[in-house]
């Protein structure tokens, strides 16, 4: 009978998660596999529980989304004990993981774009970070590396509160805008780990009728792309999550085929910085959006 892929989602209702799941599901179904998804609501404990459940069910592969590999210790042990290959999305390679992806590239793309916009001008940046999530840690690290040693840049960090990320991003941005009123001599920018807090930030810009702030975020969710198209957001870095999902599943098949000779690998698919200039082209290229 059919083989089964068990997917452990960080937040099954997050757009990016949905894309990855979609990609992996499509590839799996094409290969004749069944797919089961468990939503962990971002709880590492639940993620481990879900992996153990999959191990007990003897699924044929497990795919974990957006949890740090350091946070799924017991799940990995259970999978290893049942000889089930584990893939992660945005984790890192540790013993037991056959394939993963990295969030750092899109992070680097985002800060590079932001820096290209402000040049050497004195700049104030509001960075909306989120540390409990592996993806955001990696993207945040890329951001930090990007601004490190730049004397013209001053960063105010705000850790986003989840749940309530949109509203929290809105309030944080509104306050930061008050502290940095229009007409100052510095360039202003808001960087966010993912689209949802930016969505809130954009609403804050609208509320205070400001258009002097560069907004950059990551994910390229339909929502984010729409904001770029409307001219509300400067850019969002589209992460090719669907393709990543497909590629990860393909790698899982390869790993199973290769058996012991398999070398764990990191799938890297470059993202696209979606701006007002290329958004129409982007939408044409990616009609699913």
């Amino acid at each position, binding site marked *: 009978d059919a083989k089964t892929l068990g997917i452990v989602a960080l937040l099954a209702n997050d757009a990016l998660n949905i894309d990855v799941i979609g990609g992996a599901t499509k590839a799996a179904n094409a290969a004749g596999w069944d797919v089961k998804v468990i939503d962990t609501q971002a709880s590492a404990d639940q993620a481990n529980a879900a992996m153990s459940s999959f191990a007990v069910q003897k699924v044929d592969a497990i795919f974990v989304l957006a949890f740090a590999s350091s946070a799924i210790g017991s799940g990995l042990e259970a999978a290893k004990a049942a000889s089930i290959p584990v893939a992660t999305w945005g984790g890192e390679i540790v013993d037991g993981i056959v394939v993963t992806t990295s969030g750092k590239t899109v992070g680097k793309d985002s800060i590079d774009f932001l820096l290209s916009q402000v040049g050497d001008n004195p700049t104030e940046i509001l960075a909306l970070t989120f540390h409990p999530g592996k993806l955001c840690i990696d993207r945040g690290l890329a951001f930090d590396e990007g601004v490190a040693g730049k004397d013209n840049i001053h960063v105010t960090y705000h850790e986003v509160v989840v749940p*309530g990320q949109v*509203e929290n991003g809105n309030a944080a941005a509104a306050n930061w805008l*008050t502290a940095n*009123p229009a007409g100052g001599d510095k360039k202003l920018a808001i960087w966010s780990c993912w689209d*949802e807090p930016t969505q809130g930030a954009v609403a804050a810009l609208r509320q205070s009728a400001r258009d002097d702030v560069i907004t950059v975020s990551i994910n390229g969710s339909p*929502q984010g792309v729409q904001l770029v198209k409307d001219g509300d957001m400067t850019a969002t870095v589209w992460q090719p999550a669907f393709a990543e999902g497909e590629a990860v599943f393909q790698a899982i098949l390869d790993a199973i085929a290769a058996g012991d000779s398999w070398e764990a690998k990191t799938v890297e698919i470059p993202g696209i910085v979606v701006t007002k200039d290329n958004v129409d082209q982007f939408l044409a290229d990616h009609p699913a959006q």
Partner: protein
Amino acid sequence: MTTAAEGQKTTMARRPGSGKRAALIFVSRYGTIIGLLAMIVFFSIAAPTTFPTMANFLNILSQASLTAIIAAGLTYTLVVGEFDLSVGFVASFIGLIVCGLMANQGFPIPIAIIASLALGTFIGCINGLLVTKVGINAVIATLGVGTILSGIGFSYSAFPIAVGIPRDFTLISLGRIVFGVPNPVVIMFAVLAILWVVLNKTDLGQKMQAVGSNIEAARLSGIRVDRIKLFAFMTAGFCAALTGILLSSLLGSGTLGAGDGYLLNAFAAVFLGSATLREGQFHIFGTLVGVMILAVGFNGLSIFGAPTHFQPIFKGGILVFAVGLSALARRYAASS
């Protein structure tokens, strides 16, 4: 519950006041308000150019407005001695639905809003029926309903609903129809004023307070306890729906889970408020004070540029401090 607690508060109010005692009583009643004012003064001194400006005060009020509306609804359920853990989920759900009605069903804005408010009220009604007629503990009933709603919301639209929403819808919260004050602030004051009047000046409000304070006495006085509770839950549902609609209008889209974060903030605000003026009772004015404390603290710290981890420390600290001040003062006043 109440009588036992009241029993020990003995002879306090009737005794002639000494100066120190009067001061302590003052602090116990106005501790949270003093905390709020102290914060405002502090931030005004610390950031004289940015904090104490009209623009920033309006900004603070805007931010506070949605929390205030949802917290006011929550206050009603607490007044009747119940609980509503579903308000955040209702706000999220209705925020999604109202956008869906406009974008997918093509409803005109007013119809979509009215339908959404009705739906929110109906959800509150379900909560109320589960609690009063079925007899489920309110914590379980509302947590259950909230969880179910999050699932339904997910199956309704996992993706944000952003396309097809009329521009006018976003103007609801971006506009400033009255004297340049952002609409949500106006709506907040209107809602709070109505809820305040109903709670304090009408027979219905009296009954609500009686039900919350001594349900047996209320029942024996011929009050239909279940209906009163139902009304409170429906009000909470209505307010949560209104918050969800305003949130979607603010964001320009309906996003899954966008309002979930209101729950804890609303609770914090309501309980902060219950330490204001009247000891341990829930009331609308106190809730407003509670909401403002949280909003001012958050705003001031951001403007101040405090490190991000300082925000939760400050928020928690002000909760404990403001309420602790009132509570301690009350203790000393009682024993002096």
